[in-house]
């Protein structure tokens, strides 16, 4: 089966000052799939996403998106090419209303009708946001903020949606809901690169996974195989 690769990381190295955060990783994201990166805190998951998004500069290596080299392009250019990132900790704009937050996502879009349609779609996905459309982002609860952050990213109609720890800090009951939504978004045609600590949840919904440890990929494979892998089970699923 030949898959179209949307995003490819080739031997990527990233440094924070003297700290070698990413040590030559290779990742492929095929169109229409959910790919997940799992690993402990400090393994380099967030750094990988930040590098793709253009927030952090790579030292060597390449980021290729739809055949074009986008390594070290500024964040706003990367976004305009079709990559959206739902950052860790949600990072919604607390002083903007829910509506304005969503519009920030659609900042570079000119098609008014399309924006309208996407708004409708998002309100279907998250009916609760519609109720709170005039509220300031900062007054939403944690779960609602996470939904808003995802919706905001979707408003740019990304070809690739990257999510950094969407389940972080959420009540267990909400975690499941978030994974459900991710799955649904993917089923409607968006390619997703997901970073999670909740390895179980992430692997359950993804197609393929990479395991990151101190900046290197130590294991990769189809998600269902990783779920069975002894090392993964021990270190990340907490199953002896």
């Amino acid at each position, binding site marked *: 089966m030949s898959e179209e690769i949307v995003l490819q990381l080739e031997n990527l190295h990233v440094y924070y000052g003297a700290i070698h955060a990413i040590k030559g990783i290779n990742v492929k994201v095929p169109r229409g799939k959910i790919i997940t990166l799992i*690993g*402990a*805190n*400090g393994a380099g998951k967030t750094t990988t996403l930040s590098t793709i998004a253009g927030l952090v500069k790579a030292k060597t290596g390449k980021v290729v998106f739809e055949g074009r080299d986008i390594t070290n392009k500024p964040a706003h250019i990367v976004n305009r090419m079709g990559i959206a990132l739902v950052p860790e900790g949600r990072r919604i704009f607390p002083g903007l209303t829910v509506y304005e937050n969503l519009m920030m996502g659609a900042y570079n879009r000119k098609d008014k009708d399309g924006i309208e349609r996407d708004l409708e779609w998002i309100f279907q996905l998250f009916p609760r946001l519609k109720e709170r459309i005039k509220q300031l982002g900062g007054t939403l*609860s*944690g*779960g609602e903020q996470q939904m808003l952050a995802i919706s905001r990213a979707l408003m740019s109609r990304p070809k690739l949606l990257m999510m950094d720890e969407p389940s972080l*800090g*959420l*009540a*267990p*009951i*909400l*975690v*499941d809901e978030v994974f459900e939504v991710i799955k649904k978004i993917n089923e409607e045609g968006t390619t997703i690169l997901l970073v999670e*600590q909740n*390895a179980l949840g992430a692997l359950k919904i993804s197609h393929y996974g990479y395991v990151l440890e101190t900046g290197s990929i130590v294991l990769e494979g189809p998600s269902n195989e990783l779920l069975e892998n002894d090392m993964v089970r*021990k*270190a*990340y*699923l*907490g199953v002896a």
Partner: protein
Amino acid sequence: MSEDRVKQLEEKVAELEVEVNKPILILDHVTMQFGGLIAVNDFHNKVIKGELLGLIGPNGAGKTTVFNVITGIYYPTKGRIIFDDIDITPFRPYQITHLGIARTFQNIRLFYDLTVLDNVLVAQHHELSNPDADRILIRNGKPPKNTKRFWFWRAVTKLGYISKEREMVERAKDLIERVGLSHVMYEKASALPYGEQRKLEIARALATKPKLLLLDEPAAGMNPKESEDLMEFIRKVRDDFNVTILLIEHDMKVVMGVCERIIVMDYGKIIAEGTPEEIQNNPRVIEAYLGKEWENV
């Protein structure tokens, strides 16, 4: 038996229980309001000496606010906080620390530009320099900690300082050893990996010689393996250092695994309280917080 008698006996039992399970901390109908938002609503509970108590609840339920009220960062809108028989409600955070409550933070707050050793040493400074907490102790009929007088001049002139400093360093090194960080003693805190930063933060809190230790999401950002080590570590801390521990945690495995009693909060209110088993089977908790997955664990 008459109802009165039953009541009397019950009261007697309760009294005895009080003797045995003496509370170290009482939150007496505490309410914390920010503008229109009620972050903590009539929180009424206690922490028993020596126990390992968990505080859980969804994001924004007011857990961290409870910590901030206990440690004096916020002054509660209503209610009192009694620690070790002293009403600490009006006290400043540093005074509360001096009386014996130490804490860690949700987003680790180390002194990043200081070495591991210095981070721990900072926590011992107050013992020597803070006579005003002594005054509080004396006023409440407790033995003072005998803070050194004229510590400032000793520090500057080094008269009667060097031996004390040496003592402090010894104690700090010992503590660092006990938490297993001696290999990074002279590293800057910022250079430590995440897990060790968490440990350092706990070590630093322990260096203030607390009776009660508040841990704010100690397992955040740890993988299951690390979390398991952490549980072990927390239990060890409780036993070795003879402290009472109150912790906020999201990782249910940690909470259920380590805590003896759990309080569940939602929208600023306590919605349930009990042993891990009781909590896991409490329908309200399942509905508001845990979800079905936990029902039959």
